[in-house]
């Protein structure tokens, strides 16, 4: 007992000794801090006394819509030499700031555009103002009044190369925290071979965890503007072709394509599934005489594959149309749409493409008009000539798809082509068999840079044949009864296909990961943000 006591007391003593030391240290620290603060305050007071420009900078009060200023804010992209010597207001983010004695250079950014701004000690700006400007945290939003000046030498680092701003007033509208989880310059640093001079890069997960900041980079801005462009062009082209946009339900009662990769959600007292594709609903619209339809919406795949090109939720651009006599009418419609999209991107989104290329260099996307159509047997023959061993009716493996893409590119110099007439055995049960050769089918895949982006076919529109095909594939007829029944009341011959928006963007830009073209990607390992 006593022994223990003694031990306890010694321990206590030791603790208190340590504690004392700690306390002392803390006290010292606090004193130092106080001293510093006092010094700072004194300094500030001192400065405030002789600061003639104190009304021209500062933290503005939080804008709660107190007043509506009649003040025109300019856009950075409009700052051209024509605006020289004008006094303007603008709101922008502080991209970088660099103080140099009596001068402070800021780079102000609006989305992908930026301009150099200069705060220099002179008759309009005081020393304190320059100091304030230099201490504004990166990524803060500021209101700036400045004179536009032409520059002698082009400013290579900014998008507005011919002008700079001479700041007269600067107010911080929203202050960013001093420590950013990632630096924008690091996130926008071009991909180079090898880790030369050990410059910081930001890895994919950090980017995705802090997507808000990552999305501010010029590259991300350009990628998602281009993605919006793809959607817009898709809608525009198809609407002009007489297609009707439809909306389909995403919560469905039965799996539409096989049962393996479907998400189950609880639905009141039963369970439901998330739609893997709008397949069934598109086809029902055709049977309901909409003739040509398309839809843009999310599709869900519960595939546990962590690859560069799989997401569990992505945006599907789906097309379905009735045709007259031959399913090549459908292929032609789809390829024409794709070519229109490619042309539109090439002609209207060149600045975005250039911006992405700066960080992720890639060859420009090449295509042919009308689109090249090869047949599956030809593809297999080309692969065999290149030394690949495969059977006539084997499906193409991913490496073989890539190899075929390279072979086609070499010969025809196109990044986009159609492979027609797939073997029937590798396609879903609702695919129409080829009339002249029962081993093959009226189905097709489309490829961009050797990766599949669309898979489609002429669908069986005859309930009898559909039942036969389903039985052949050993599918429970009860489960697809509703699907088969929709063809019992007269159905026009039809076909279609579905495109993944993210894949199209990724492959058009020659990026290497689909997460770069999905704003908030969902994969087996990521559910946030």
């Amino acid at each position, binding site marked *: 007992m006593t022994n223990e006591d003694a031990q306890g007391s010694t321990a206590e003593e030791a603790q208190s000794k340590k504690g004392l030391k700690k306390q002392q240290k803390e006290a010292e620290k606090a004193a130092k801090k106080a001293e510093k603060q006092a010094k700072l305050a004194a300094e500030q007071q001192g400065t405030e006394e002789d600061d003639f420009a104190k009304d021209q900078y500062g933290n503005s009060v939080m804008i709660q819509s107190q007043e509506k200023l009649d003040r025109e804010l300019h856009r950075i992209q409009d700052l051209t030499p024509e605006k020289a010597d004008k006094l303007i207001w603008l709101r922008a983010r502080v991209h970088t700031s660099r103080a140099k004695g009596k001068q402070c250079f800021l780079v102000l950014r609006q989305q992908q555009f930026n301009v150099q701004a200069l705060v220099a000690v002179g008759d309009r700006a005081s020393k304190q103002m320059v100091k304030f400007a230099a201490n504004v945290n990166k990524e803060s939003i500021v209101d700036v009044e400045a004179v536009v000046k032409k520059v002698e030498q082009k400013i290579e680092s900014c998008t507005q190369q011919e002008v700079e701003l001479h700041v007269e007033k600067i107010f911080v509208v929203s202050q960013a925290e001093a420590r950013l989880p990632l630096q924008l310059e690091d996130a926008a640093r071009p991909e180079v071979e090898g880790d030369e001079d050990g410059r910081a890069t930001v890895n994919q997960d950090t980017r995705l965890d802090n997507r808000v900041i990552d999305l501010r980079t010029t590259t991300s801005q350009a990628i998602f503007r281009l993605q919006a462009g793809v959607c817009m062009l898709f809608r525009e082209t198809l609407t002009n072709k007489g297609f009707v946009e439809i909306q389909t339900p995403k919560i469905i009662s039965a799996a539409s394509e096989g049962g393996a990769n479907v998400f189950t959600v609880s639905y009141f007292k039963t369970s439901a599934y998330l739609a893997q594709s709008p397949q069934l609903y598109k086809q029902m619209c055709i049977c309901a005489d909409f003739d040509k339809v398309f839809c843009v919406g999310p599709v869900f795949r519960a595939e546990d594959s962590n690859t560069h090109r799989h997401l569990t939720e992505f945006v599907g651009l789906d097309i379905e149309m009735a045709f007259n006599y031959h399913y*090549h009418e459908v292929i032609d419609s789809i390829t024409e749409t794709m070519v229109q999209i*490619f*042309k539109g991107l090439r002609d209207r989104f060149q600045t975005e493409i250039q911006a992405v290329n700066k960080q992720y260099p890639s060859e420009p996307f090449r295509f*042919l*008009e009308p689109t090249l159509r*090869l047949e599956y047997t*030809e593809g297999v*023959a080309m692969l065999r000539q290149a030394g690949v061993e495969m059977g006539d009716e084997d499906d193409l493996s991913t490496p073989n798809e890539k190899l075929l893409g390279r072979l086609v590119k070499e*010969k*025809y110099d196109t990044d986009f082509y159609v492979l027609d007439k797939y073997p029937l055995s590798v396609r879903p049960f609702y695919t129409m068999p080829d009339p002249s050769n029962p081993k093959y089918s009226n189905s097709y895949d489309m490829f961009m840079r050797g990766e599949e982006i669309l898979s489609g076919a002429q669908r069986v529109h005859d309930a009898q044949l559909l039942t036969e095909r389903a039985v052949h594939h050993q599918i429970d007829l009860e489960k697809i009864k509703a699907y088969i029944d929709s063809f019992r009341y007269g159905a026009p011959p039809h076909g279609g296909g579905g495109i993944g928006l993210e894949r199209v963007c990724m492959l058009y830009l020659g990026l290497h990961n689909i997460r770069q073209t999905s704003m908030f990607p969902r994969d087996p390992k990521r559910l946030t943000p």
Partner: protein
Amino acid sequence: MSMYQVKPIYEGGIKIDLPTCMYTLPNVHQLQAASSCSSEHAPQNGAADPEVRALEARQDEIMRKLFELKAVVDGLAKTVATPDADLDLTVSSCLGSPSPTAACTFSGTADLDVLLGKDMGALRDIVINANPARPPLTLLVLHGLLCQRYRVLSAVHVHSSVASVPPQLLSCLGPRHADGYARNLFQLGFTLIWKDVPKLQMKFSVRNMCPIEGEANVARFLFRLLSPGPSDAAPATLVDSLVDTAFFQLAEGGAKEQAAALRALNAALGRHVWLAGSELSLADVACYCCAVQSGAAASAPANVQRWIKACENLGYFSRAKLQ
């Protein structure tokens, strides 16, 4: 790979003056001896031998074909000699249909399997990248000829490096194939891609063959598919040099060079009907197309004018009239 031909050292039908002092025996070296014997016997039996009748029928058939051929050649000769004359009905029907008679203009036969290798199930597709600023007229004419000989799948594409292409260049290989063709039914693919290339380019088998550059060289390649060309070295060289004249002097040369080239052609055409002799050859196709394209045809001397008219009377040369 064929080799050059050598003249036989001795000819079969040498007449030998045999001595008449002895009785004659049938020649033991002559194979026909036995059969002629039996045919001599046949009439004696009274009934005509079926073999002989078959032989007679064959001979009649050959004679009939020869007469037909003669008529066709006469017709052709007429159009050549008198350029204004319309094509005879027989001739035009011959040229219009993909029958072997149409291609008979070119001697020799060509087998695609031998020339281009086995197809292994894939369409043998010849891809030509051409700049729309300089349409390859020669190749368009040759395409027309290929279509007469083979089942050709023709396709015209526009590459993304070219903003737009005039409509006549899109239809230069004839109307687009109707929907639903099966590609494996064709013997040969002819894919023309309008692309921003400095020099015309042809790709066939990218793994075994480097691209062929220049319109003249591609024309030579395509013409080999129609006929192996003259087997003798001298005329082959003549054709080759005329093709070079066409592309370097008529098409790309200055006014002086053009005039000189036209004079040379004029002289050659004074000696023969066609540039390289009595048969139409690649030289005619190339020179005609280059002359038309460069506009040199307008100020050509008399023989050349006559020859141009003669070319124009052949249906497939109309492909060269794009502009």
